[in-house]
């Protein structure tokens, strides 16, 4: 019994203070509860998605982030003293997190979402700091970000901050706790607006178009407004499933959203996912629009023929998909976007294989750039959008060319 107690105590101590633990700010708590909370908050803030190279060590940096102004690299935020945050105090970390400024005065590019993180309270910052400082240091230097002039002049960001990165002082006192929690997760930690809000020519989010959708790395991060979500068939329940499982009847995570699921949303507690969907869709969400499938689903047409030729093998002749292999297309959210960009590019470029929670996964979808002409792709896109997306509009070959040129 004594031996068991000693071993248990030793194990707990190791869990709280690893042998490689960096010099922590003495004012920061590091007990097990704080570290777990810090880990949860870091996940909710989706730090790993940008600070982890593909297949790399978590938080060791190196992931390229494409911006309209050039490629920014996620930095090393392990406790390494040379290349990470090993020499940061809790104050330094809080300042960098919420103001985008490093201890040496270097101003971070707003690819780091400090405009969203402004509202992270000090106790949450300290918990995240304690967690990150408990990680094993990785002695790895992330590539230097080199933007073209004039964006390479970091001092200009001070003006950018004054113009665009003011703190959100609008406090919604009248709202209830779950709504506030959802707002914190969506607006602050999750920084959803960083991708889903249109940006102006200087790269700043346009607050009057909040969450109305934006193109990121060539793909549309669609509207997350209640009306936009409901129009594409989303209900709060479907949204929760999508964030927790990475897939739902409306589709599966892909492109820039997959890392968000992989590193962040799949770890969130149900009550937090509930709060997020409540905040996004409102207390009385608009009713999800259901697509009525008509006879055109099976009527002969050029689009139907392309579908049978290159899609039906995986998605089924009736668009039902194959469980654990390929998603269904009836009511699929991508088919219902007003802008055909994502659908055309998925057909043209394909989609990588994706692993989801448990043993669930979706196989890779091949790109059909070599099999389908622009005209073929336009016909297939129109068939998909009109049959299972409930859209009336049609695109032509020139639109396909416009969306895929340079690929």
């Amino acid at each position, binding site marked *: 019994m004594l031996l068991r107690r000693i071993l248990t105590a030793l194990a707990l101590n190791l869990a709280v203070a690893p042998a490689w633990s960096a010099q922590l700010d003495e004012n920061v708590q590091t007990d097990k509860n704080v570290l777990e909370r810090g880990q949860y908050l870091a996940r909710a803030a989706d730090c790993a998605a940008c600070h982890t190279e593909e297949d790399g060590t978590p938080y060791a940096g190196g992931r390229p982030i494409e911006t309209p102004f050039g490629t920014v690299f996620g930095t090393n935020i392990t406790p390494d003293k040379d290349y990470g945050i090993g020499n940061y105090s809790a104050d330094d970390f809080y300042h960098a997190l919420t103001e985008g400024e490093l201890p040496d005065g270097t101003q971070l590019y707003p690819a780091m979402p400090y405009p969203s993180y402004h509202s992270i309270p000090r106790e949450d910052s300290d918990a995240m700091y304690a967690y990150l400082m408990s990680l094993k240091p990785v002695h790895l230097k992330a590539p230097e970000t080199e933007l073209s002039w004039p964006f390479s002049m970091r001092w200009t960001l001070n003006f950018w901050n004054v113009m665009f990165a003011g703190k959100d002082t609008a406090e919604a006192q009248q709202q209830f706790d779950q709504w506030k929690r959802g707002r914190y997760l969506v607006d602050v930690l999750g920084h959803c607006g960083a991708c889903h809000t249109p940006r102006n020519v200087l790269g700043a989010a346009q607050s009057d178009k909040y969450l109305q959708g934006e193109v990121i790395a060539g793909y549309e991060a669609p509207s997350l407004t209640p009306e936009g979500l409901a129009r594409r068939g989303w209900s709060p329940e479907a949204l929760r499933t999508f964030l927790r499982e990475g897939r739902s009847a409306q589709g599966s995570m892909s492109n820039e959203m997959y890392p968000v699921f992989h590193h962040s949303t799949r770890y969130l507690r149900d009550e937090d996912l509930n709060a997020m969907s409540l905040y996004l869709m409102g207390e009385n969400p608009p009713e999800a629009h259901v697509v009525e499938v008509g006879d055109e689903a*099976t009527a*002969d047409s050029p689009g139907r*023929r392309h579908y*049978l*030729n*290159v899609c*039906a*093998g*995986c998605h089924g*002749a009736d668009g039902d998909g*194959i469980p654990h*292999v*390929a998603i269904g297309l009836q009511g699929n959210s991508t088919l219902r976007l007003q802008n055909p960009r994502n659908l055309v590019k998925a057909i043209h470029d394909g989609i990588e294989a994706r692993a989801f929670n448990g043993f669930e996964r979706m*196989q*890779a979808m*091949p790109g059909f750039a*070599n*099999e389908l002409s622009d005209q073929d792709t336009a016909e297939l896109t129109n068939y998909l959008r009109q049959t299972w997306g409930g859209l009336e509009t049609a695109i032509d070959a020139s639109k396909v060319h416009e969306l895929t040129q340079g690929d």
Partner: protein
Amino acid sequence: MPTRALSVTINGKLQPVEDIPEELMMLDYLHEYRNLTGTRYGCGQGMCRACTVIVDKPDGSSEEVRTCITGAHFFDGKKIRTIEGHAERGEDGELKGLTNVQQQFLKHFSFQCSYCAPGFVNAGTVLIERLQRQPVDRSQLESVISEALEPHLCRCTGYVRYYEAVRDAVLETSGTIAGRD
């Protein structure tokens, strides 16, 4: 199930034009309508490429296409080669000779269960035909072969022998290496 006429040339012979179901995959057409069972059904998801056939394009180039996920009607009007079309045969069907790729597969004994072999033979053949049109430097050969064969899966993990067979086949085919006859 709706049907539609399909006209396709397989291994140099225009096949009888007949109505086949619109939703039929090419692999099933080859097996059930043409009795060409050398094209393998592997994963059924386009992943393993055991089902690969060669499509000969009008511009003289050739490419691999997976038949388990591609509808038969996609091949309407096209010319394809299956594994049965590689060896040279006489009028009576008697075997007269193997292609260089096939010879190399025999020489290197690039078979274990052989299930994936048709896909690998097709991939090696397409690669050689591409290199004859677009020769590469000798220094690039290893990576070019790797890139061509990597998508094909072999559950017996006989990759080294496949690789060596294709490399020797490339080296024995004139015009595939830049600056060398």
